[in-house]
């Protein structure tokens, strides 16, 4: 048995632990907010006011899809780079400073969001401290400036993390001339290239428009422009959540199955496809937007369909690797080999279930991507159904399962409660099946997402079952997922303190069946892929953005801010508007 990661690279292990800690704290808060929502919108139990629901919803979105996922990513990627290059960073101070910057940014944004729970939030920088604008912060809804500032610091932190990993790789390359980039590092670098290209969109949206506007420096902005810039970033960000899960599926899952990765070259091709195609598709989130012509929507649709390719290739490679592993373990037959897989290992079972859910969710994603069917489901509960199968399970469950394998190596402690861990991942699977079954079906009959009380004067036409049955499934699923999260956090916490033990894991990663020597070297020439990716982005976005600016102006056709007002002012406006309606 080789040395544990924590023994070989104690400082890197400390950083990965710190990143995971932040990630898991966010997971706990986000999960609590999630169960509050599941019970609230179904009317089962309402602990907060419906106006406060949106504070909970903003927290749920930001803490889970920004903090939980991305802190896990930086931890995992720090591990992957260190382990596969067998060296630490050039300068550990840079490593700790990006971790610090990301943490400070998260904290600032979190303060702005959580202030929404106060009855009388204080004024900060000239406006009320709150950020009930959800994860998408569509202007002209306005949050306190510190919310946007926090996001900026966080993103700059991730940029520095990428720079740190590139620097480590350059240093490695000098010592290993002519060698192929080890696969885990290749995945890290390509993910970060995608991230650099895509996060420009949100950086411009915030720095050039939304932040100065929230500070009162400019009066108006163009909501179509900031929204388009958001989605320029908003689709690739889902791959930023997903690619660490892919890394675990390609690198760790084959090993857990008892074998090795089927094909290293195809894994590289998959990641390159994500670099090329992740960004020029964002307009598929805007099929229903006015101000964008049908032609641009069509281009986004075709690009999106081609994004299926890397995921379909992944399905093949991952299943083939699992089959290879099962046969190494003595599995036989056409399908009987499935029995030979290590189903008692929570790390394996969690990832396998996550992959299964991901495959199903992928098909619901095709429905979303189909630009004319999209009109039926856009912003209905179908969409959170899709999100919860993909980020909420394919990613989150893989991260949890991966933690069962990784945390012992990062702490030097044995995993506590392996049986409970197995129960936890299965419970997650059961919970998500209930919850998303309800969400998908409710979405098809038009129940909206992002609503505290989706109960209206009209009745939904439920084809099969009833609204009550859908509500109960959603609430039950939410509760099971929350219990599963609590179990996960408890297991990790107990493992962290389980110091007088030896972990039972082997951290070595066996080489792929078909190694990198089988693939052309151009795959490793990252500059080529950056160039092509940029060309595709320009083709997909230059004309739409120019057209939006030409139509509405850089700062919009005089669209003023709309602070998220509460109580008195809101009801006053509501009342005035209502009287207006009665008169007209």
């Amino acid at each position: 048995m080789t040395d544990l990661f924590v023994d070989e690279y104690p400082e890197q292990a400390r950083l990965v632990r710190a990143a995971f800690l932040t990630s898991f704290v966010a997971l706990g808060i986000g999960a609590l907010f999630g169960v509050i929502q599941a019970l609230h919108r179904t009317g089962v139990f309402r602990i907060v006011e419906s106006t406060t629901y949106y504070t909970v919803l903003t927290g749920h979105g930001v803490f889970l899809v920004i903090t939980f996922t991305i802190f896990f990513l930086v931890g995992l990627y720090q591990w992957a780079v260190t382990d596969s290059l067998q060296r630490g960073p050039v300068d550990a101070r840079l490593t700790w400073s990006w971790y610090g910057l990301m943490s400070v940014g998260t904290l600032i944004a979190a303060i702005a969001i959580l202030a929404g729970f106060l009855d009388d939030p204080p004024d900060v920088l000239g406006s009320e401290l709150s950020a009930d604008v959800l994860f998408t912060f569509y202007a002209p809804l306005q949050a306190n400036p510190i919310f946007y500032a926090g996001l900026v610091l966080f993103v700059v932190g991730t940029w520095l993390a990428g720079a740190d990993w590139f620097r480590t790789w350059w240093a490695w390359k000098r010592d290993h001339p002519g060698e192929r980039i080890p696969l885990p590092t290749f995945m890290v670098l390509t993910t970060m290239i995608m991230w650099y290209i895509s996060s420009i969109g949100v950086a411009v949206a915030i720095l050039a428009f939304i932040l100065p506007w929230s500070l009162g420096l400019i009066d108006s902005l163009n909501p179509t422009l900031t929204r388009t810039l958001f989605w320029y970033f908003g689709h690739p960000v889902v791959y930023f959540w997903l690619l660490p899960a892919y890394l675990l599926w390609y690198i760790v899952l084959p090993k857990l199955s008892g074998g090795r990765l089927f094909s290293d070259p195809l894994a590289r091709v998959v990641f390159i496809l994500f670099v090329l195609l992740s960004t020029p598709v964002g307009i598929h989130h805007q099929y229903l937007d006015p101000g964008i012509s049908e032609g641009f929507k069509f281009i986004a649709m075709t690009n999106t369909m081609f994004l299926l390719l890397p995921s379909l290739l992944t399905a093949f490679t991952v299943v083939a690797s699992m089959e290879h592993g099962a046969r190494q373990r003595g599995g036989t037959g056409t399908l009987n080999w499935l029995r030979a897989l290590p189903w008692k290992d929570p790390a394996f079972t969690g990832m396998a279930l996550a992959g299964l859910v991901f495959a199903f969710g992928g098909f619901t994603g095709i429905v979303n991507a189909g630009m004319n069917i999209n009109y039926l489901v856009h912003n209905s509960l179908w969409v959170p159904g899709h999100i919860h199968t993909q980020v909420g399970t394919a990613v989150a469950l893989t991260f949890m399962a991966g933690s069962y394998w990784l945390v012992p190596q990062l702490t030097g402690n044995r995993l506590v409660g392996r049986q409970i861990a197995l129960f936890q991942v299965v419970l997650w699977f059961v919970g998500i099946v209930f919850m998303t079954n309800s969400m998908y079906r409710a979405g098809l009959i038009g129940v909206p997402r992002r609503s505290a009380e989706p109960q209206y004067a009209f009745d939904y036409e439920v084809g099969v079952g009833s609204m009550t049955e859908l509500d109960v499934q959603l609430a039950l699923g939410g509760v099971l997922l929350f219990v599963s999260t609590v179990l996960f956090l408890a297991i990790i916490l107990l493992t962290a303190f389980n110091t007088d033990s030896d972990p039972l894991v082997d951290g070595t990663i066996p080489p792929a069946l078909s190694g990198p020597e089988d693939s052309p070297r151009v795959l490793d020439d990252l500059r080529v892929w950056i160039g092509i990716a940029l060309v595709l982005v320009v083709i997909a976005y230059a004309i739409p953005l120019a057209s939006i600016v030409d139509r509405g102006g850089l700062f919009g056709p005089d669209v003023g801010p709309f602070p998220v007002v509460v109580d008195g002012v809101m009801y006053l406006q509501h009342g005035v508007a209502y009287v207006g309606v009665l008169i007209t």
Partner: protein
Amino acid sequence: MNIHAYERLWLVASMVLIVGFIVTITYGTVGLGITMVDDREETISPDDVDEDDRFQDPRVEQVGENEFEAYVVSMTFLFQPDPIEIPANNEVTFYVTSRDVIHSFTVVGTNTNTMVIPGEVSAMTVEFDEPGEYGVVCNEYCGPGHHDMEGSLIVHPEDEYSLTELSVDAPDQVGPGEDVELTISIQNGLLEDLETTVDVEVGDETLEQDVTVPGGETEQVSVTVDGDDLEPGDAEWSASVDDEVETGTVTIGDDADDGGDEP
């Protein structure tokens, strides 16, 4: 590059699947003519919504044979007009804009669904073939009262649909024995002539008068009830054309039945 035979097969099948999806969607767009919300409308500042011909008076209009336009304004946290009434089996183009933040205009259970962005006008042409009442919701978070934002869309059977508006000029009081004269204005918003009957009731008296209102015009009808036929006191009146009804009260005689409140 060494690719396993099965993997090659899978790759080809994947590409066939992807191209197949693109082909079906293209067919839906080009073949079936499912068009999308796009940039065909000019931008409009939210401040100018009140001055805009289409949106200062949100309404439904007939613009051609079997063609209607609905001008809808979204704002926190309601839709105007509410309800929106349209005929079945006719092309209706919705023009929707926002006064404040991003909303959606979503007819529940249908694909009539568009984002409504301040500064932009969403246009979508649809045809409802099933009469009934549909819920309209905003499905984009727009503020703390988002979940209260609801409207309704009433789709009338084609032959029962009218855009008739009624207004009545009636006296509040007449002297004993005086005639009561009601002047009824009937506005026909449809392009076709409206041949209908005005039903008037004053007290126990009922009168009928046939009227033809040319398309897009307003006709006035005067109806007089003989004062001798009416009892002194408060008389309820109503005037109706098709489903439109106006009601009121006319007092006959001097301060009849009105002395009770005096000290």
